[in-house]
Each structure stands twice: as C-alpha cells, then as structure tokens.
C-alpha cells in the first residue's frame, strides 16, 4: 500500500483551511493511506478554544473529512480534538481513522503531557485503553505523540492483534532525537511496522520538529520519497513510501516475542 506522511504546519484555529489543504494535497496523489499530525485540524496551542474547535459526530468538519477520504479513495489518519454528546464539557485529543467507505473511528490519547511547556492534562480527558482499528482488513494500532514513550500501550495494541502502528505527533524540535530512538524500538519489540507523522511550524515559542518517518518490523527505516509542498515552508514535506501490510504476519514466526510474552507474562 502506498502511503503518504504529511509533515505539515496547520493553521492555528482554522479547521476548514486545514481540511481544504488536505483535500488539495491529496487531489494530485494516489495513495492508499495518508497520515497527518496530532491536532492537525485545530493546531496545537489553541488553548481554551480547543473545546469550540472539537469535531463531533455528524458535525460539518467530520463530514468533510469523510467526504475527502471517499473522494480520494484513501484511508485518512489525522489528529483532532473530539467531543462526544454523552461527555458534555469534555474534549479528547484523538487520532481519527477515516475509511474510503466514509466510516470514521478514533483512538484517544492515553498519556497527556503536563510538564514543561505542555498543559494537555488541563485541557483533555485521557483514554484508559487502546484498541486496534480496522484498516483495509488489517488491525492497526493508533497512538499520539507522548504515548510513544509507553511501550505498554504498544504491547497492548500488539497483543490485541495490531499489525501496524500509526503514530501522530505535535512534538517540538527538542524531542526529535528521542522519537528517533523509541519509534524503531516499538517496531522491533512488537514485530510491527511504524508510521510516524510529526508536524512542523511554530506556535508561540514552540518550534515543532518534523522528523516524520517509517520503520519496518526490524526497526529499519522504510525508504521515503520527499516531495516538496507547493507554497510550503522549507521544513514542510510530503513523505511517500510503500508499506507491506502483511509484513508483521510474515515476520512474527521468526521472532515470536508476542507468542512468548503471552506464554510467559512478565
């Protein structure tokens, strides 16, 4: 499956512009899967506005995303604030998985960074569990940014059947080297390829670090073509590669960590 990682800078507080940009960028590219960063719909430091910017079931922006996925015949993965009717007043930092059939599902961020410049624990409600979601007939585990530093989440997702990890992020340049180390580790320890899309741009003093990438089951980088973004900033890029969704199933008999951890739990 051909995939695209959209290492882009969203416009803060402008969801319709951000969705229109996704639509434009996908118009000229045939990919089966397109991944965009954490909170791409709203921007990251939207503060108290995040509640108003949250997507909700049946709302205009979500319908637009479902339309784009269907029109471009692609699986769309991206970060957005989400609100649901039975949890009034709460907002979730979520990664959405929208299918070409117009279906949409999401995973909520587990660990909300509330240290240094991050205040997510003040704004968002965390999730207590992670579950694989179906993508083209394969269970896929989704995670957001700081979640990448918790191997427990990825083990949980792998043991529940995930054959691919998709990680979206709004991570600053000061954390870039850390992600470069843990993401291939998550791939190796679970025998599961990882796709990672991090954003670029600047909000207040936060400079987001890009560094999006993809790793195979051995933790080796998957070759990516870097395509410049029309009218984009130099640090923005579209990274295009080829993903083998059956790789995890083929690899795991030769390095059966999931079988062994099930037989002998730690």
């Amino acid at each position, binding site marked *: 499956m051909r995939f695209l990682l959209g290492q882009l800078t969203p416009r803060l507080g402008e969801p319709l512009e951000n969705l229109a940009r996704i639509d434009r960028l996908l118009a000229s590219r045939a990919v089966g899967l397109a991944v965009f960063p954490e909170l791409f719909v709203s921007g990251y430091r*939207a503060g108290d506005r995040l509640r108003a910017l949250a997507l909700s079931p049946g709302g205009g922006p979500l319908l637009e995303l479902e339309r784009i996925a269907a029109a471009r015949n692609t699986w769309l993965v991206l970060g957005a604030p989400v609100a649901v009717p039975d949890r009034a007043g709460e907002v979730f930092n979520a990664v959405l998985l929208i299918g070409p059939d117009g279906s949409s599902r999401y995973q909520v961020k587990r660990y909300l960074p509330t240290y240094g410049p991050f205040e997510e624990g003040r704004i968002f409600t965390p999730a207590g569990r992670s579950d694989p979601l179906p993508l083209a007939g394969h269970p896929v585990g989704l995670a957001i940014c700081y979640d990448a530093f918790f191997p427990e989440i990825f083990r949980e997702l792998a043991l529940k059947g995930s054959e691919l990890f998709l990680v979206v992020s709004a991570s600053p340049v000061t954390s870039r080297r850390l992600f470069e180390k843990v993401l291939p580790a998550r791939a190796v320890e679970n025998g599961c390829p990882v796709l990672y899309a991090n954003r670029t741009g*600047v909000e207040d003093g936060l*400079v987001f670090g890009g560094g999006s990438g993809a790793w195979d089951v051995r933790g080796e980088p998957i070759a990516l073509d870097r395509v410049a973004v029309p009218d984009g900033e130099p640090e923005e890029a579209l990274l295009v590669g080829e993903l083998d969704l059956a790789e995890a199933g083929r690899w795991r008999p030769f390095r059966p960590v999931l079988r062994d951890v099930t037989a002998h739990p730690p």
Partner: protein
Amino acid sequence: MTGEPRLPPHAAETIHQFLRAHVRAAGAKGVLVGLSGGIDSAVVVRLARDALGAERVWGALVPDAAFPPALLEETERYARDLGVPTRLVPLAPLADAAARLLPEVTDRVAAGNLKVRLRFAVLYALAREHGALVAGAGNKSELLLGYVTKYGDGGVDLLPIGDLYKTDVRALAAELGIPEPIRARPPTAGFWEGQTDEEELGATYDVLDRVLLGLEELRPPEEVAARAGVPVDRVASIASRVLRERHKRVPVPIPKLRLRTVGLDWRD
C-alpha cells in the same frame, strides 16, 4: 569545572524557523534589529538575514554620545557586509532633552534605563515605518539575571536568542563565523563609560552561565557551586537575584476577578 552550557543542536535552524513563522503570522514585512556593536545583536541580525533574506531585515543604530566612532563604523560595515541596510539615529538630542526635563533623575541606573527606553522608542517608530517586528538581542543569561531594562531592550516583539545563554551565543557566533573583534569585545550595557556586564554582575559569564544552567536543571546548590567553581553562598546570591528579577520576565500581574484573566489563565 564542569557544567558549562552546550549550544543546543539545530539552534540556528530552529531560530530561522521561529523568525519566519512569527513574521508570517504577524503579517509583517520582516524584522528590525537594533545594533549595538556587541555579539548578541550581531548574531541576531545574522540569523534574521539568513532566515528572511537581507531585503526583509533592517538594522538600526541609536548610539549615545559616548559611543566610540570606530565601533559605529565597524558595526555599519558588518551590517553592510550582510547586505542589511542600516539607519543611524543619534540618541543624544533625545537623551539630552530628557535629562534637561528631568533634572531630579541623577541615579545612573535610572538615567541609563531612560536612555534604553528612548532607544527602543526609536526602534519601534522605525519598525512601524517598515512594517517590521522588533527583534531583540536579549539572551537567557540576561533574562534570568534581570540584566535588561523593562520596556527597553526587554520590550520587544521577539527574542530569537532568548533561550541561549551568553556562552551559547558565543559558540553560535563562532559557528556562524561572526568576525573576531565582535566576538572578543567585552559585553556592556553601555549605561556609562567603561561599564562591563561582567564587572557589574560580579562574575564572568562563564561562571554565571554554569550557575544558571545548574539552576535551570534544578541541581542542589552544593553541586552547582562545585560545577561552577564558586562558593555555595555565591550560588545562593545568584539564585536570589534570579528570583528578585522575576518581575521582568512575567506578564504584568492583574488581580483575578473574573472567570478567565489575562496573563493568568486566559489561554488563546
């Protein structure tokens, strides 16, 4: 001694990105930098030129009467070599008028602060004409020690090197190939003739930055002292100075009376 700050990786590229993004977000045409002849403003104007292109950077020199003519010439030449146009505005007429108007201001720090605020009033007027943001040259050592004038050099639109210690700025200047005379010149606020930062602050930046980095990393005072090669009470006095000068770093305090309060919990 150990514990000296190391220039963070990708510092220059990160600052380039920061400058471009803020100029774009503000809808500005570029940035204006006040040039003092020192290393900090030399680094800032160079980073701005590299990030935005020379046609979107303006340099301004607003020297007081005591500013050495040779240094003026050298600073203008440095900007010219970068392709950055400069505007020279002598501060003396403004400063002299203020001094005549305010004979009761005799304290040399108060008089120095007044001059700095007048200088930045000039920079803002010029920036407005160009549709530019004012990029300050304050570094992290100065910000933490409060070695800045509130609403003078501390009152700017952007502080591109505000998270770099003086030691980092020196390393970055070397990396950028800033001319040696600029890098070697003793730092001064220029409040009075012969003033140097290090004499007034009572220690070299080499020592101060080791202490400040230790404070940043929340190390115990004894350890900070050992790493900086100074007695523990010296660390304590620097730490208390940092705390005393906090008012220069935080938003103007406003008493909370309503649901969301500017500077406190109004988050947009």
